[in-house]
């Protein structure tokens, strides 16, 4: 991780002694909050700190975690991907539809289509130089339209046939404790973490997000790197969609609208800066878990409606972003 920390402080940061503490907060603040929340909930709520409940929380947020992983790369390049929510829903519907032709088809089709939408995002943003948010906002609508046309305007819900190989895998548990979706998430995050912090490609991602023009002058393949991160984000949305379809046993058409905000929240909570050039994959995982735990607590305490949860997650996001802007503003600027 040393490669990550090296590029963080701006010029002159050594002059201020406050920076290391802030840097620590920026990096591990989410982990700290997660620990506090877990301890508080463990003390205050019965049956919260059990392996069963924690596994339930973690597996339930596996989809979000995969989306957040893809989103992390995009945000580190200074971009944003608003299309992951509907792309994820599209992936789920495609997976459920294709499951009649076997698990391999159910895996391949969503990855191909969602990856293609990600690639389209990437090409439009990197080659045609369109603004990321408007491009992905448009493809968000496009992916939704595609999903509706696949599912007969949302009137057909495709069911996953009983006894599909992937179904038993998705619902299975390693040693009877750790659900396989969680395991998949952990594996993907380790791969993602290595790709971002230990490879030349990861260095390119940071360089593009830090200063695109300097990166280009240094010979970083800017357009290719940007295209790649949006494609990865699309693939992640497809993978999460497959997982969701086999988890629920059907391709639910309304699931996933608005999940892009949660993915962005998780990434930001995890310490990745929206302005790009700084961030890490492990933080996004902590961010997802924090969101999931808070949601679980809200559910346990009182049967509050999902609308109320939306209010909480919106406000929470703003609070985190405000805190971050204070932390990063106190960091000296170039």
């Amino acid at each position, binding site marked *: 991780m040393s490669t990550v920390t090296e590029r963080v402080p701006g010029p002159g940061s050594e002059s201020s002694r406050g920076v290391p503490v802030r840097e620590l907060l920026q990096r591990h603040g989410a982990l700290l909050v997660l620990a506090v929340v877990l301890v508080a909930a463990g003390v205050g709520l019965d049956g919260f700190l059990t392996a069963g409940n924690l596994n339930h929380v973690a597996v339930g947020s596996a989809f979000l975690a995969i989306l957040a992983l893809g989103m992390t790369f995009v945000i580190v390049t200074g971009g944003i991907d608003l299309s992951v929510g509907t792309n994820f829903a599209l992936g789920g519907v495609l997976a459920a539809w294709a499951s009649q032709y076997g698990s391999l088809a159910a895996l391949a089709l969503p990855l191909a289509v969602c990856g293609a939408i990600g690639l389209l995002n990437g090409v439009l943003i990197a080659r045609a130089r369109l603004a990321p*948010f408007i491009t992905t*906002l448009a493809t968000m609508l*496009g992916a939704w339209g595609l999903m509706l046309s696949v599912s007969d305007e949302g009137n057909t819900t495709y069911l996953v046939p009983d006894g599909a190989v992937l179904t038993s895998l998705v619902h299975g548990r390693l040693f009877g404790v750790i659900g396989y979706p969680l395991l998949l998430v952990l594996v993907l995050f380790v791969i993602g973490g290595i790709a971002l912090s230990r490879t030349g490609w990861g260095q390119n991602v940071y360089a593009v997000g830090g200063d695109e023009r300097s990166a280009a002058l240094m010979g970083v393949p800017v357009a290719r790197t940007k295209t790649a991160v949006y494609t990865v984000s699309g693939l992640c949305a497809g993978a999460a969609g497959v997982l969701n379809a086999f988890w629920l046993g059907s391709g639910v058409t309304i699931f996933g609208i608005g999940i892009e905000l949660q993915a962005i929240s998780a990434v930001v909570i995890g310490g990745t800066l*929206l302005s790009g050039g700084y961030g890490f994959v492990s933080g996004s995982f902590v961010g997802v878990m924090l969101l999931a735990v808070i949601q679980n607590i809200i559910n346990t305490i009182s049967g509050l409606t999902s*609308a*109320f*949860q939306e*209010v909480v997650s919106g*406000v929470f996001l703003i609070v985190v*972003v405000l805190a971050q802007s204070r932390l990063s503003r106190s960091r000296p600027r170039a």
Partner: protein
Amino acid sequence: MSAASVMARVDRDRARSWLQDYGVYVGVAAIVLFNVVFTPGFVSLENFRVQAVQAAPIVVVALGMALVIATGGIDLSVGAVMALSAAFVSLYLGYGPLVSVLVALLVGAVAGAVNGTIVAVAGVQAIIVTLAMMIAGRGLALVLVPQLEGIRNPALREFGSGSVAGVPYVVWVAALMVALVLFLVRRTLFGRRLVAVGGNRRAAELSGLPVRRTLLLVYTLCGALAAVAGVMTTARLQASDPNSVGLLIELSAITAVVVGGTPLSGGRVRVAGTVAGAILMQLLVATLIKHNLPPSWTQMAQTAVIIAAVYVARERGRS
């Protein structure tokens, strides 16, 4: 570079610039022409009235969006603010239609002011602030009014479906808003400032312009205009439906603004183009529906239009 290729490039830039400024009118003319020829019953007073009534909320929301985009920002929360205002109309209807409408407008302005404060004072990116407001705002609207609630009020019904001098009230209100925004942009200091802030925020700050106050005002105005659209829609539907009021209107509004020639990077605002852009978006959807194409086609067509519009608009954005 040879003289010929330079000339070719100048020509191309000129063509692109012309397309950015006037393409939207060509688009509106083309889609009207298409409908006149291919859509039975398009040329009728009744249909014009229907189209105008349906375009009115998009126009009003797009006006606010144009101002925000001119400052180099964005407001994704306009649809949620519409839902909030719809919820408050229903909540305060007991105090009379006027009070409920005023409260709804106030709530919209407050939501916009919250956006504006966080964007202007804390310096957080507009996209993330308004994204949070988009989720939290609609969530709050649904907490307050969990499901569709019918609104039975003669005054509101008259506002939603009545007309004066043959023109529906909501169209009058939209026209009034257009005039107001035109006045603000063309004749007031505020109008100059918002364009200056969008053009170069640092330069605006250095030359002593009240950048933060301008931004705050712009987002507040955008929220208030979204609330006007929310009241219009509520009055027309005679129901407050926080689940679907203003859903995805931010996309239509942003597209209308961009198609209308206001660059996403800010520093420029075209009010008439925005109005034409909003009408174009409405006609596009209406045409697809009239020709019995399913909603999924509408969304994919909108995707294509947005990407094409942003593609045409992109060059100037970089200058």
